[in-house]
């Protein structure tokens, strides 16, 4: 036995790594690096594309900015008098998002607090799975629920002339953004060190006092980031709002009015707008507008999250 070992060891020492192995390793390194950079490339690529398609029209001065932002008259295919007033579309997106957040923020944060502080371990596991399932429902299914079920319910219970409206879209969007708010909010609460909780309880605080006097202020930034990501989800959602809001160009004065959102307009009209036409370019300008809104929201969320991490370390 010892003899054998003696004869094998020198052979192993001599053995070098084959050249192909190092090459493969290098190649894999490159691939992985590309994967890492690709996200950045895609974002810039998309931004450049959207900008190129729309900005020419904007720069050529063919689009009156005051009409675009100040008029509700959206008649892109009119035979006699084409008008590109996007005010109603902007108001549509804003109203639906606002209502969705009014509903989703209390529910989402409440659920996050319950999950992280009050419920037992088994309940938490079950709830988390269900909430993840909620996030996995395709948006067209949500839209279908809005179009059929919620429409009839809203007509019956609110005596509304039509059930496809801000309320309908807002409810659907709220259900869609709650899972995001819950999971990020819960993470933020979990990130608060247990010593905070122990100190609060040791000083005689009730659990509820601990939550709203200690935990909420400590996790404030993470919760805000959760809300902002929820807003980003709501602003960008297309298919569900296209089906649930009625797709109707008007300035909403009540939650029972139908509206049309920026995203739904692009989805419904881009297919028939000939490439390069005025209509096509205006739709891309709407794309630029949406891109800027979501970019601003995500950037804010990111800066806030970064603030938390910086403080934690």
């Amino acid at each position, binding site marked *: 036995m010892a003899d054998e070992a003696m004869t094998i060891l020198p052979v192993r020492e001599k053995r070098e790594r084959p050249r192909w192995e190092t090459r493969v390793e290098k190649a894999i390194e490159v691939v992985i690096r590309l994967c890492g950079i690709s996200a950045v490339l895609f974002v810039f690529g998309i931004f450049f594309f959207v900008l190129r398609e729309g900005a020419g029209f904007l720069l050529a001065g063919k689009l009156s900015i005051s009409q675009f932002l100040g008029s*509700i*008259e*959206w*008649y*892109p*295919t*009119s*035979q*006699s*008098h084409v008008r590109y007033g996007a005010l*109603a579309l902007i108001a549509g997106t804003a109203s639906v998002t606002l209502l969705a957040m009014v509903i989703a923020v209390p529910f989402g944060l409440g659920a996050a607090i319950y999950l992280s502080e009050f419920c037992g371990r088994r309940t938490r596991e079950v709830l988390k799975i269900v909430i993840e399932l909620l996030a996995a429902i395709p948006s067209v299914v949500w839209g279908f629920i809005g*179009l*059929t079920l919620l*429409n*009839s319910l809203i*007509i019956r219970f609110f*005596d*509304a*002339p*039509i*059930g*496809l409206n801000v309320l309908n879209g807002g409810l659907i969007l709220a259900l869609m953004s709650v899972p995001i708010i819950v999971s990020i909010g819960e993470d933020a609460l979990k990130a608060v060190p247990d010593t905070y909780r122990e100190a609060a309880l040791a000083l005689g605080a009730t659990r509820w006092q601990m939550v709203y006097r200690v935990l909420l202020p400590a996790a404030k930034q993470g919760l805000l980031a959760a809300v902002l990501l929820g807003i980003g989800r709501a602003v960008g959602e297309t298919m569900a709002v*296209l089906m649930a809001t*009625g*797709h*109707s*160009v*008007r300035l909403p004065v009540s939650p029972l009015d*139908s509206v*049309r959102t920026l995203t739904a307009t692009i989805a*419904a*009209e881009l*297919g*028939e707008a*000939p490439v390069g036409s005025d209509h096509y370019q205006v739709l891309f300008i709407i794309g630029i507008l949406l891109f800027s809104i979501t970019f601003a929201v995500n950037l804010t969320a990111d800066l806030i999250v970064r603030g938390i991490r910086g403080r934690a370390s």
Partner: protein
Amino acid sequence: MVNLAQSWAEEYGTVEPETSIEVSGGGSGTGIAALINGTADIANSSRRLEPREIATAERVLGRAPVLHVVGYDALAIFVHPSNPLREMTLDQLGQIYSEKGPVTHWGDLWVSVPGCSSDRMILVSRQSNSGTYHYFRDAILGRGRDFKLGTIDLHGSKDVVELVGRTPCAIGYSGMGYATSHVRMLAVARRSGETAYPPTVDHTQQGLYPISRPLYMYTVGDGKPHLKRFFDWIYSEKGQHLVLANGYVPIPESEMQTASVGAVAPAQQPE
């Protein structure tokens, strides 16, 4: 029109199995764009090509698309079954749907609709990629006029009927073939004082029902023999029977000859 094309494609598969026909939907504008881009052999459309589309086709394909009339579509005006209204005139429709039209409430037409306490008329329309939208705008509102802001713009013909069936305040337009028991179709008169005719096959073929339009199929040239055979079959009794079965109106026999001839005549070119 996608359902009709679908059943033609299925049925034709049993007649000539070696020719396979794939159908995809998405509004008249979509089909015409596909024809121009060369991704489709036939574009089904419920409207005529617009001059700029003909120009684009000539530029890209080198020749104008060929027009075929394969049937008729009667657009019905739908209301909720609880609505007491039974008939209206084309003029009233224009006042309801056009941009500065004065009719906005059911009370303006002297009807009160049970279940519609707000009395506000909910105008159900189509998205602007639909041929029905363009036909209704040009034929009912008049060329150059636009829809009222605030119409509910839906994606499909069936969606319009379903929404009207669930919404007491609503009025909508869609192909008469989409009618269900949850909605009522109004009889329509050309002008006040004339007889209002309900949308039926006979009334459409006799030209009495005022809101009907031809269904078109566009091809690039007509040289391909398998396309020619397909069109011959569409104009046969079997093909026209499917038109009827899908809720559209077949070509009257008196017009059959001209329709077939029309199949090889080039599209009209506006100067």
